[in-house]
């Protein structure tokens, strides 16, 4: 099977002992994988390593068969990402921020910028400086930046951060539409089990930098009424292992 994303035993530990250790999983076309874990469980570190923002101590990440560490440009050609708080230039307008990103993709046309602003409902704020935006608006612009190049793999770290209920539903709709119609794959992190349960078809549980499980949503919910119960069962299992 040809995978969109292959993560093989990546580890990164910070001086405070936190980080991610020996993370392994793969993502096929159209998969929507949710990384579920509390704050400090290693979700963001894992995503940063996948996007090449930080260097792992060991392991390998391949996107469309290209190593992120050796062939960065080829590997990330069809990737869109939103990691932590959206990376925006506050002294520029929403359109100017999108223009900066679009300039790095030869195929992106001006119409796509207008379309993305409409998708994230920021078209009436297109000429406003980002510094004046609320957290939710910045998050929506961050999402537009992640999707501007029409990517085939989208990495979203806590995409619901700062969004209102309507915004969260819209993000879910965008994800399901892109996954179903275009076969795009998504890697989404969240500490909200309900959000992952509604959006993803696969789930990986991260806890204290360790990956406790990697299952399809069906498997995860087979013996547990909700994803929250599944998560708690996995954490309990891990704690039990530690005590023994």
């Amino acid at each position: 099977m040809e995978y969109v994303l292959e993560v093989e035993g990546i580890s990164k530990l910070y001086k405070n002992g936190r980080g991610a250790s020996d993370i392994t999983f793969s993502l096929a076309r159209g998969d929507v994988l949710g990384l579920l874990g509390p704050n400090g469980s290693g979700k963001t570190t894992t995503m940063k390593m996948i996007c090449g923002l930080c260097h792992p101590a060991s392991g390998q990440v391949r996107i469309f068969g290209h190593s992120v560490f050796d062939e960065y440009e080829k590997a990330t050609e069809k990737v869109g990402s939103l990691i932590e708080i959206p990376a925006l230039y506050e002294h520029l307008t929403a359109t100017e921020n999108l223009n900066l990103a679009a300039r790095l993709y030869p195929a992106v046309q001006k119409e796509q910028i207008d379309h993305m602003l409409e998708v994230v409902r920021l078209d009436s704020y297109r000429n406003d400086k980002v510094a004046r935006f609320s957290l939710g608006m910045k998050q929506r612009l961050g999402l537009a930046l992640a999707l501007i190049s029409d990517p085939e793999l989208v990495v979203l770290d806590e995409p619901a951060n700062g969004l209102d209920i309507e915004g969260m539903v819209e993000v879910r709709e965008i994800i399901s539409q892109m996954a179903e119609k275009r076969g795009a794959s998504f890697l989404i992190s969240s500490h909200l089990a309900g959000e992952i349960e509604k959006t993803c078809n696969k789930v990986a549980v991260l806890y204290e930098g360790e990956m406790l499980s990697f299952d399809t949503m069906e498997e995860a919910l087979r013996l547990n009424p909700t994803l929250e119960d599944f998560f708690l069962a996995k954490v309990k299992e891990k704690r039990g292992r530690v005590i023994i």
Partner: protein
Amino acid sequence: MSAFSGSIKNEYIKLASRKKYIVFLIIEAIICICVMLVQTAANKALSGSVVVQISNMAMGMLTFFIQVYIPLVVFMACSDLFSAEMQDNSIKAILMRPVSRFKIFFSKTLAIVLFAAQYLVALLLITSVLEVISGGSIRDFWLNLGAYLLDIIPLTVLVLMAVFINQFTKSSSLTMFLCIIIYAILYVLGIIFPTASGLFFTGYMQWHKLWLGFTIPFSAMLSKIGILFGYGLVFAGAGFYLFDKRDF
């Protein structure tokens, strides 16, 4: 547009869209006008008994701007594109795009060099226009242009030094302070120890003086070129190494 040229354009736009740099350009023009006015007033006050005139205004102003004013603009631009972006995390906006860190690092550096060169071009144009207005001539325009172009070389090394310093801290104000202090120390050391001044690249900021007018022997020139390029390579290599190894 290739990723590299697109990236250079992006970095340049990021700088050009900040109002403070337009203000600096206006201040540059005001300084030149003030110098011309003082010169005219002095001439009038002395009723022509002693003529106070900078023989070539473009070259006279270059000495001040290339050693003091433009380095300050360069330090500010470097801290805006490196440490300030690391501080507010906006650097991730480009790091998450399909552009290698090598291209990102050098596109930022090149954009700063182009930006600094723009200040030089503006200075040349302003001083030439003022020269004409004050009744002088611009017969040395092409020679002046050559001098200005030559001074872009040490300016590039200065940019590389500032970029290198920017890799040590995420605080833009601290980086700015460090750049000014280090530049000032190197400059003063060159004055205190004139015999060793050839070893500090800050002594070459007026690079055109080596090439235009009375030139030194070619062998001596070669060693000076070597020193300047050596500094450039070390700053570029070390700066890129630190940038490439950094986790964001």
